[in-house]
């Protein structure tokens, strides 16, 4: 089937070429990092994780959100999702791969990565996350590919494939829960030390991931003519809205608990992010921007007339994705490290090397997604004609 990715028009090849260029740029930035060490990034003794771990967290959410189409289609037989399921599954594959690459990029000694498996440590959440992510990758790539292959031959998918799909549903919840456990089990990091972190991760994932899925389905419609259906997109928009509402509700809970209880350690990180702490307020405009566009997006999605218009739908989805990316991909990680355990404030700003490595990984993920979807669309269109 893969040969179908080798046929494309001019803009397809321009797109591929630009992705490859960014991947090469990312590789060259990464080689600097390997040579000189992680000192070339903005991270330091106080803020010891940054852009990479933040992207990892955001992308695990995108991967998990595939369940938003898989679940209604396979468990509730909602036929309207029939043409979207494969997009969700392949998005999950590419997002999981990217999230794993971001972990790799963050390691001081990536050559020793296998130590996680050679010395399995069940007391460490990283061990479980590694199992959960690699399992999820495997489930989605195998089932997605097998179902596509069966469709091409015009036969129903084998029952073992169905079994994999069913397993992937709870598995999707588990990957993001375990990812939240990476953070929420650490004493002394009060922004993360909260029981609602896992639910909030899931809610924001279902909002941002589903919004991204709507955008990808619209891009496919525009570029290839493969329309996964307005009805599916509208249903997805409803799911994204619920996810977004749950996310902002839980954020409100965090604010109430921290500020009403008035416990300094619980307030400090939120103060730093949203109001400034001891005169340090670099992220304040960004965090409010995230809050406002996120709530704005939900407003649009709640007005039926606006939601029906593709323009408004695109704007709302983009705003929701950006809002949650800022919240999870910037605020969550940096805020957890500020103030430091000794109440000191160290400002983190990613360097250009870090940004290029991140762009490289995103491009690689997009390249894989493009190839997978190209094949999927070709098979589906062949079937239709």
């Amino acid at each position, binding site marked *: 089937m893969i040969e179908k990715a080798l046929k494309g028009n001019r803009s397809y090849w321009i797109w591929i070429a630009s992705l490859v260029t960014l991947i090469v740029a990312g590789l060259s930035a990464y080689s600097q990092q390997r040579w000189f060490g992680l000192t070339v990034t903005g991270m330091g*003794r106080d803020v010891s994780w940054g852009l990479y771990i933040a992207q990892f967290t955001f992308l695990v959410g995108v991967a998990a959100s595939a369940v938003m189409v898989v679940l209604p289609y396979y468990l509730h037989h909602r036929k309207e999702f029939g043409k979207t399921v494969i997009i969700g599954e392949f998005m999950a594959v590419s997002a999981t791969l990217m999230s794993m690459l971001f972990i790799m990029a963050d390691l001081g000694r990536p050559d020793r990565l296998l130590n996680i498996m050679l010395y399995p440590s069940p007391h460490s959440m*990283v061990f479980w996350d590694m199992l959960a992510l690699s399992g999820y990758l495997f489930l989605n790539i195998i089932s997605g590919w097998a179902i596509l292959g069966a469709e091409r031959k015009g036969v129903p998918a084998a029952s073992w494939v169905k079994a994999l799909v069913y397993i992937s549903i709870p598995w999707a919840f588990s990957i993001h829960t375990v990812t939240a456990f990476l953070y929420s089990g650490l004493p002394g990091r009060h922004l993360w030390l909260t029981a609602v972190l896992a639910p909030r991760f899931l809610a924001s994932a279902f909002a941002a991931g589903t919004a991204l899925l709507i955008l990808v389905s619209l891009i496919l419609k525009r570029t290839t003519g493969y329309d996964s259906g307005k009805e599916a997109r509208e249903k997805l928009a409803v799911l994204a809205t619920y996810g977004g509402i749950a996310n902002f509700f839980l954020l409100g809970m965090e604010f109430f608990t921290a500020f009403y209880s008035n416990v300094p350690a619980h307030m400090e990180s939120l103060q730093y992010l949203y109001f400034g702490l001891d005169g340090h307020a670099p992220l304040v405009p960004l965090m409010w921007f995230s809050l406002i566009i996120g709530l704005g997006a939900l407003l649009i999605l709640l007005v039926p007339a606006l939601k029906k218009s593709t323009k408004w739908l695109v704007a709302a989805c983009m705003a929701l994705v950006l809002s949650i990316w800022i919240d999870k991909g910037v605020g969550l990680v940096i805020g957890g490290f500020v103030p430091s355990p000794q109440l000191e404030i160290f400002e983190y700003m990613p360097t250009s090397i870090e940004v290029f490595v991140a762009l490289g990984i995103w491009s690689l993920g997009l390249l894989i997604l493009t190839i997978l979807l190209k094949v999927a669309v070709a098979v589906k269109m062949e079937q239709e004609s």
Partner: protein
Amino acid sequence: MMNQQRREFIKKTAFGVLAGFGAASGLVPAFSLEKTILPVWDETPVSGKIRWGMLIDTRKCKKDCQICVTACHHEHNVPHFKTRKDEIKWIWKNSYKNIFPTATDQFVTSDVLNRSFLALCNHCVDAPCTRACPTEATFKRWDGIVAMDYHRCIGCRFCMAACPYGSRSFNWQDPRTAIHDPSLAYPTRQQGVVEKCNFCSDRLVRGLQPACLEACPEQVFTFGDLNDPQSDIRMLLETTVTMQRKPELGTKPSVFYII
């Protein structure tokens, strides 16, 4: 009594020789078997039997003195980077409100506010860092010391996020470029791994007390076995009011402070 203490100390530390022999023999050219006390060979390490601990008398510590810090960092080849971002430290000084951010006192004496307080790894009994480490590169030894295997560490920095005291440093770049006066007593590390205070486990196997304690001219430190009711440190702990850093987190630090 002091002699008895000293002999006890050497006995307790020296049977680590058995375990530490392989590592130490290659690194310490002057290492000689003759220094070993004989009863050592009859004993095998029993997990949890000993728990090394430290008591810091902050009243005696001179504000601008850096003797212990320099001694430790020299002995263990801790690199000296100028920028805060790349900084690596095993023991350092900070003010009261930074070392005890959750201490409840509202009106602290000006004397305490002006003092400087030493910070180092607490060798916690329930250490969050060992729990978080995915490779056992950070692990708890049989004698309570939280140790590091620099050859196993993958540099994920999970332990740094987990430690609620900021005790850990990462080698953001090659540390060897910033070691100006290398010591033969302890190996240097590589780029990309985490490091921290090791409670001088390298010196304990040689029957020596920690480097900071030995260097301090003011007798600020007391080091000993917290599980031994007869040890100096236990007797001091039982007769003096002491404090620990962030006791509310349940990590059970093995470093105590007299304020």
